[in-house]
């Protein structure tokens, strides 16, 4: 069983569209994250939820809206997509209170045309 799974794996869409990426973890972790990786492999934190509560919100355009229906799921909705949103989006989870070890999903590659 995949520990942290994201769908879709690939997403190609036009500028201006709205799209969502879903993430689920079956590790029983309380905390989940979204990270963005650009074409130069630079990884940047976007959001974090702990038990459905938003705890980290980096400087991200408000076109990006995370939603956590329960602690096993964290979705990312993006409105009015722009070319610069093209990236790989990684979901991650963390379970142990004393460590920052994150378990990452395989990524969702978003291409905006």
């Amino acid at each position, binding site marked *: 069983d995949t520990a*942290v799974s994201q769908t879709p794996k690939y997403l190609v869409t036009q500028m201006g569209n709205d799209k969502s990426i879903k993430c689920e973890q079956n590790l029983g972790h309380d*905390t989940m*994250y979204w990270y963005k990786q650009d074409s*130069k*492999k*630079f*990884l*940047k*934190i976007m959001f*974090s939820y702990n038990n459905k509560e938003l*705890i*980290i919100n980096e400087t991200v355009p408000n076109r990006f809206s995370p939603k956590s229906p329960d602690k096993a799921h964290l979705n990312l909705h993006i409105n009015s997509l722009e070319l610069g949103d093209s990236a790989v989006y*990684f979901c*991650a989870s*963390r379970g142990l*209170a*004393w*460590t*920052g*070890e*994150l*378990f*990452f*999903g*395989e*990524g969702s590659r978003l291409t905006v045309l």
Partner: protein
Amino acid sequence: GESVGLHLPTLSVQEGDNSIINCAYSNSASDYFIWYKQESGKGPQFIIDIRSNMDKRQGQRVTVLLNKTVKHLSLQIAATQPGDSAVYFCAENVGSTLGRLYFGRGTQLTVWP
């Protein structure tokens, strides 16, 4: 090692040699650091972590060294194998919330047989 340039730093080693990957971090208040490995098409995978009250930590075939004076981390991989070929990231945990990771730019390690 860490680079301010546009290209991903690269390190090429022969199978069986030791590898050393360097990283500079920016925040002198950071007290927790992690190394991640990212294989092509996959999410980052935890390798080893170290807290600022230590200057060395060893894992299986890996050693992390921390020099707080010059804000420098290194990852040493002993007897490097072809399966070690990947991009390696150092990350510093920023602030008191664990998991708020600021990643370095990454180093592409290539192991030649």
